[in-house]
């Protein structure tokens, strides 16, 4: 009679015998995994992050570029694509090689003082963007005749509650789907019958003006397209996905595909506003005017369509940005973090999150505020603070101890440093022109 334990083991042997292939079955099972799945498992961070750039501030900025400057700024999209792609790719690469988030790396390589400086810059930039998202919520609902004194506090309370209760992820998709409405700009651009020849010429014909208005818009475009938070986002989502050096190639493709798609949408927003608003000498002073660029497609429903898209995009980012900022800061300084913690356990994490939501809602409710103006100003702040993050990213990505053989190549470095220098100079010019308006 066999011993009981061996009976247990015999079960295995018996089935093995019956299936008669034993070890060789591994080959079959494993080989069945399709390649496409591997790709889908990795695709995402780049495309999603780039798409997130088209939020309230982005739409307002691009629409006013089209309205004020027609097709003349389209050339900027070419260097912007390269810069955005390079910056995003560097962060994604750092995430894959080190397995760590950007704020982790900044803290570990630069020490406390620089971390404090970079985090302050990030806090201000993200605070500005959060304000812009709440302004977006206000503007979207004002189109539907809901006063912002009602919509903003309700939205802020809802976001705070959803995030702290941990149910935000479930509604996130609804907002994401709503924001896809902005794809309507692509159709609208075609229906407006723009002069395609002019568009093509302007794409290779740089245009620049030394006026404070132009500089302001110029930096806003850069700041909203290459926002500081996007670098933090892409790196942490690459880390979260578990992307590693071995399968990084797919992520690299994903980053560039995302960049090109995002800029393509920007292009169509500019074209459709240029072909409608600019043609009639209109400026974008309110959401209603930005919405009117959708008329060729939606006619009288343009405003409803626009407000759905704006509301979705703004709600999405108004939840994610304060949360991501709180995570970044807590990660960098080693504070307790997580939405499931109580205020006593994670005072700073929840404090930063709550502060940003309250700040955003409060500013958005200030009486007599030009919403579109706020949207653009916050993007300028983004642009001004961008060099701080870019320098940190460049120093990290070129650190051999950290990146080994995956440091930047010379061409990459030149392009990245050129971007950083150009953005820095432009930012200084904007600050200068704001402080001394007489000089311009």
């Amino acid at each position, binding site marked *: *009679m*066999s011993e*009981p*334990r061996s*009976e*247990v*083991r*015999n*079960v*295995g*042997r018996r*089935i*093995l015998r019956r*299936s008669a*292939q*034993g*070890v060789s*079955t*591994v*080959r*079959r*099972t*494993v*080989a069945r995994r399709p390649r496409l799945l591997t790709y889908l498992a990795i695709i995402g961070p780049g495309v999603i*992050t780039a*798409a*997130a750039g088209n939020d309230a501030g982005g739409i307002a900025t691009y629409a006013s570029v089209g309205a004020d400057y027609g097709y003349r700024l389209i050339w900027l999209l070419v260097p912007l694509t390269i810069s955005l792609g390079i910056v995003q790719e560097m962060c994604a690469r750092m995430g894959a090689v*080190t*397995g760590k988030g950007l704020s*982790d790396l900044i*803290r*570990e390589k630069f*020490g*406390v*003082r620089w971390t*404090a400086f970079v985090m302050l810059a990030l806090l201000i930039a993200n605070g500005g963007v959060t304000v812009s998202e709440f302004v977006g919520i206000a503007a979207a609902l004002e189109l539907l005749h809901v006063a912002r004194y009602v919509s903003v506090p309700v939205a802020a309370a809802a976001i705070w509650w959803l*995030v702290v209760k*941990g149910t*935000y*992820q479930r509604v996130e*998709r609804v907002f*994401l789907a709503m924001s896809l409405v902005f794809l309507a700009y692509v159709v609208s651009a075609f229906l407006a019958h723009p002069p395609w020849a002019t568009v093509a010429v302007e794409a290779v014909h740089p245009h620049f003006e030394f006026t404070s208005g132009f500089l302001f818009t110029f930096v806003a475009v850069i700041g909203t397209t290459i926002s500081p938070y996007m670098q933090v*986002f892409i790196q*942490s*989502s690459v*880390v*979260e996905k*578990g992307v*590693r050096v071995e399968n990084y190639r797919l992520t690299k493709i994903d980053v560039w595909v995302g960049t090109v798609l995002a800029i393509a949408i920007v292009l169509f927003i500019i074209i459709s506003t240029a072909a409608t608003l600019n043609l009639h000498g209109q400026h974008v002073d309110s959401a209603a005017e930005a919405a009117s660029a959708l008329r060729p497609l939606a006619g009288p429903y343009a405003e409803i369509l626009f407000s759905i898209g704006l509301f979705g995009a703004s709600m999405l980012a108004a939840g*994610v940005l304060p*949360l*991501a900022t709180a*995570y970044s800061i807590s990660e960098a*300084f*080693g504070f307790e973090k*997580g*939405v*499931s913690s109580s205020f006593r356990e994670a005072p700073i994490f929840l404090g930063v999150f709550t502060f940003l939501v309250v700040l955003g809602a409060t500013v958005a409710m200030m009486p007599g505020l030009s919403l579109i103006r706020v949207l653009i100003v916050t993007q300028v702040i983004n642009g001004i603070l961008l060099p701080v993050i870019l320098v940190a990213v460049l120093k990290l990505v070129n650190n051999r*101890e*950290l990146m080994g053989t995956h440091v930047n190549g010379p061409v990459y470095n030149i392009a990245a440093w050129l971007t950083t220098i150009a953005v820095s100079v432009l930012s200084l010019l904007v600050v200068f022109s704001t402080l001394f308006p007489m000089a311009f």
Partner: protein
Amino acid sequence: MLYLSQVLGRPILDLDGERVATLRDVIVRLGEEDHPPVAGFVARYRRRDFFMPRWRISQFAEHGVRLNSDVLDLRPFMRRDGEVLLARDVLDKQLIDVDGKRVVRVNDVQIIEAANDWRVTGADVSLTGLWRRLAPAFMRSGRPVEVIDWADVGYLATDAATVQLKSSRGKLARLHPVEIARLAEAFSYQHGAEIVESLDDETAAETLEEMASERQAQILGDMDEERAADILEHMSPDEAADVLGDLPEDKAEDLLNLMEDEEQSEVAELLPYEDDTAGGLMTTEFVTLPRDLTVGAALARLREMAETPNMIYYLYVVEEEASWKLAGVIALRNLILGDPSMSLEQMMRTEIQVAHPDDEAAEVAQKISEYNLLALPVVDESGDILGIVTVDDAIEILLPKDWRQRLPRLLG
């Protein structure tokens, strides 16, 4: 007591009080001791780093370091095996506090002089420690600090030293595998893998079982193959089969072939089943007993078992010795409380819930939860028992564990 942040950048003085260099880093030898001793210093002179051994130092205090000779040895600094640099490898890095079961970031390092030696006693993780490095001296507060005793440091996440130095097996093993897994997942994938590698085979196996399956595959896939096979042997066959299924085909085959025969066959037979079926969920570790056995004999048999499977709360009664035809089930509770002379067939329940290997995983989980079962037998078309799906796997399907909520899943 000294804080590392206070001594870094301080002057190094010779016998005459002449400044000869600047203190760049403090070198510590990590070993078996709870509070590792300072082994020397890295000094910087004219933009070059050189080594200054412990025995050359007569004084080490807040205002700097004093040498006991005028002779300066300008050998360039080279890190030796087993040495850890406090500023470079410890400060600002993360470590596992075994006592608090959490990952913390080192804001400062505490050094205490004891018996003519300087020893690292703790890592300051408080806001006060952060403030000490940020603010000018006059603004420093006397608020209490929160210091992690160095004896409680289970793992140090630096890129420099070797694994054996950074983690102490004994300390991490004080934690439950679930906790180790949660902590390991808070680190980058490289550090997470190091933590698992530093554990003994059994704890490593249990820890891996608690991690997300892609991460299990990554860690085992990158490990030395012999070691990975050893760990796989200690995992429950169903989990091991899942991991192998997640690995590239060649790698899975290599690892499987390195496993001991017994464990290998247990795992191999589970491999053909799809992940999301009853077959993919089931484990082959269960106890069968023939129906004509008495309760007393059955209990005796259980006691004699060299290695009992985890799941012995249900005993599966089969038609006869060495048969697999499922006749009924007895709960261990009834067996213990029952009359020893009674035969199993009198006691067993024959109205039993079963699953078939191709049943969908979600359905199986649903059934387990609906009937409040601890395990559900999986039988083939002829009524032979193939394995059992245990309640823990069912819970995992019904309530996917989401350790990875470290960061919000950004934008969907």
